[in-house]
Every structure is written in C-alpha cells, then in structure tokens.
C-alpha cells in the first residue's frame, strides 16, 4: 500500500529546557543527521509534564510520544525528574494496560552535552514507530 510506504511517524517530544532541549540544539549545531519527525515542545522540567499532555498528544494524532529530561541527580529543581519518573511510569503502564503498543511511548535522559545521544534516541524511536504504522487507537476522529 502506498499510504503505508509514505507513512512518516509523527513524534511529539516533550523536552526539558535545561538538558534535552539544549541537547537537541547541540545535535543540530554539530550537524548530526537524524530524522526530522519530532515536534519538540520545550517544558521547564519533566516534573511539570502532566500525563494529560501525553494523552492529549496521542488524542491529537501523535504516533509516538517522547519525554526527555535530565539524568537522575542533575535536575535543575533537584527532584523534578524523580517525580516525572514515577508519573511517567504510571501512564506508561496504563497505556500498555489498555493495549496501546509499548513502543509508542518513550522516555530518555539526555543531557545538554549529549547531542549524539539525542539523535540516537530519535532515530531509534522513529525506526520503531515505522514498524508499528500509524497510531489510531487514541486519535480523535477528525484528526484521522
């Protein structure tokens, strides 16, 4: 099917401004090649991400959602990423529970110095999503 071949996964990436967002900039200025499928949304801290953001991204048509923040111990607000780790674990389990493919939600720790890691995370994620095809379980009908 040509539609399947043309399929380009849409990734919504919630990036912490103190690390992963800067990491993505570094990947850019270092001219590292990686797929352009991610729409970055910079957040002040992964701890500020409500599970509602994740559900809403899927609802509005994301094929995959990435949450990326600072390594444990490096949070600008000291404990935001610890809180995020718990919340994201729970929403991940809930998505899995209703039968959403595990590979549609991903979380990573990418520091401001890890441009190459950022590129790798996106490359891997897009590759996995390519295998899965379009996400239409949680998608609003008008966005289909």
């Amino acid at each position, binding site marked *: 099917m040509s539609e399947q071949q043309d399929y380009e996964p849409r990734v919504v990436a919630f990036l912490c401004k103190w690390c992963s967002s800067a990491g993505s900039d570094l990947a850019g200025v270092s001219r590292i090649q990686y797929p352009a499928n991610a729409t970055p949304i910079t957040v002040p801290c992964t701890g500020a991400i409500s*599970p*509602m953001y994740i*559900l*809403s991204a899927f*609802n509005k048509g994301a094929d995959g959602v990435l949450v990326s923040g600072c390594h*444990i111990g490096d949070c600008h607000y000291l*404990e935001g990423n*610890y*809180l995020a*780790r*718990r*919340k994201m*674990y*729970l*929403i*991940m*389990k*809930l*998505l*899995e*529970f*209703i*039968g*959403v*493919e*595990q590979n549609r939600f*991903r*979380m*990573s*720790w990418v520091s401001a110095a890890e441009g190459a890691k950022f590129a790798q*995370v996106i490359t*891997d994620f897009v590759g996995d999503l390519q295998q899965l095809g379009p996400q239409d*379980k*949680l*998608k*609003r*009908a008008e966005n289909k």
Partner: protein
Amino acid sequence: MIKLQDIRDTARDMLAKGEARAVIGYRRGSRGMLAEPAFLTRPEEADELVWDPTCFHNLSLYLVHDRKHLAHARKTAGAPVAVIAKGCDARSIVVLLQEHYFQREDVYIIGVSCEGTGVVDERKLAGHLNGAQAISAAFDGDDFVFTTAEGEKRLPAREVMADRCLECCSPFPKEHNLAFGEDKTGRQLEAPFAALDRFEAQGAGERWDNWARHFDRCIRCFACRSVCPMCYCDECVVDSITFPVTTATTAEEKASRIRWIERSAARSENITYLMTRAMHLAGRCTDCGECDRACPVNVPIRLLNNKMEKEAREQFGFEPGASIGGPSLVASFLDNDPGNFIR
C-alpha cells in the same frame, strides 16, 4: 456480628447530646432491597438506620458535599458530622484528611467492619434469583439472606459479593472514633487483584479489543465522577466551567481556549477522560467500587483504578489511605523507584 441497635443508639445519643451536627448512614430505600444514604439531624430519626449487604455507598462523598456547602454558604463547621464507614470508606476519609480537605475533628467516624463478608454485587445476585426481585437483604454469618416474593433465599456471601470485597484484606476501618464488628484485617477470600490479573493475562490485542468496546459504550454521563469522594475538584479538567460559553462568546475566543478533551462521547475522548481520571485517582482511590457500580453501561472502571493500585503497591510500596500523615503517591518518590524503562 454487628448489632444494628448499637449503631442506632450511637446515632441517637450523638444527636441528642449535640455531639454531631448530623449523622450520615443508611436507611431503607424506595427501590427493592436497596439501602440508600440517610442524613439524620434529629435523634428520633435514628431508628431509620439499617445495616445490610446493600449498604454499598461510600458515604464519605457526603462529607465532601458538606464541605462544599459550608464553603458556599460561608459557614463554619461547628460540631462534627458523624459518618458510618466501612473499611474502604474509612480509607477514603483518610485520603481526604491526608489532602487537608477537612480536619480530623470535623468528622466522627463510626466504623463498621465487613467482618467475613462485604457488600452484594447486584449483577451477580441477578444471576441467582432467576428473575425474582429481592425485597430485603441481611447478613448471616458467611451467608447473605434475601427475601423475595417466593420466600427466603440463602446464598453463600462469596457467590454474590462484589469482587472488591472478595479481594479486600482490610475490611476493618482502621481509622475510626468508634468501631463495630470484628477486626478481620488480613482475611483473604480471594487474592488481591484477582479480577485484574485475570484480565491482564490476555494479550495486548485482546485487551485493546475489550477496552475499545468499553470505551465506545461510555456515554459521558459522569456518574463515575459524581459518585467518587476523591473527584472533588471544583473544576474538572474534562469540562471547563471557568470559561462558560455564552451568546457573547466569540468564535475566536472559543477557538483559543485549551480543550484537553471534547465533551462528545466519542471513543477517543472517552479514553482520554477515563485514563486521565485513573491517573488523577492513582494513589487516592481506595477501591470503594462506587464508580464501577454507578456506571449505567458497565464500563469496568475498577480495572483501571486497580491497575494503578497494583503498580503503586508493587513498584512503590504505596497503599492508598494507609495513614493521614503519609505522602501522596505522585508527589513523592524513592531513590530506587523503577527507572530501567528510561533510555
């Protein structure tokens, strides 16, 4: 065994002495065998109180209503409200106290132990009565006794009990001012999360097929939200009241508002609602079962809440409603929380 007279005497006494502003309990309802919530303010009303296997309502909901009413009327509480609470209901009160919804002295908890049984599941019971209507229900040891037009029907409680009661290991209201019935903490009629485990044993594809059907059925009546003592938000994220749409609202204004979820009962919106609700109740839901019971189209809401409860217990060692001073699930963390799912 709980003596109804003791409950009635306590209520009468408290009201007569002015020790309670009101007593919230159960009385005979107008629909068949079912009990209904009762709000007593005069001592002579105490004899209306009942205690039987249809007392499933989580009355802590009305403590929340009372609070909202007081705030609205700008009144102060005065004497406490006394409330009859089963094990799960008392844990709901603990969560409300944990969240400072009201103070401990504002509520007088008349605990009732479910001892060896629990409350009846009407859907299970229907399968045993062959179309007959029960007009009353009573506890009797390990049995429930129902009266129907055809006479008395005695059934082992286990066969018609709500799943959550079968799986409940703490039927005794630990937090109480006064408690009736035997403390059977640790009893195990069925393993915790048994129903959830049966559902989870299916593959992801089957789970989705099931959930898709359930989510399709939801009519967004919000009965599940209305009946839940933990869903006390003045403004729910799924239907905004801060920005009401009036005739003066322009199309532009409407378009620029954040709408996380549409109000229409479409599958995608229902999923977002029910999943968001499950997240908001993680670590707060005490499995009182009211949302699941209230749903007119039998969406198995309990499974979602149970999934969160199970993860919380197994991964974070967290028990909802365990102690008033304890931390909340999502506003706390441990250094060794699972993190190997993160790349």
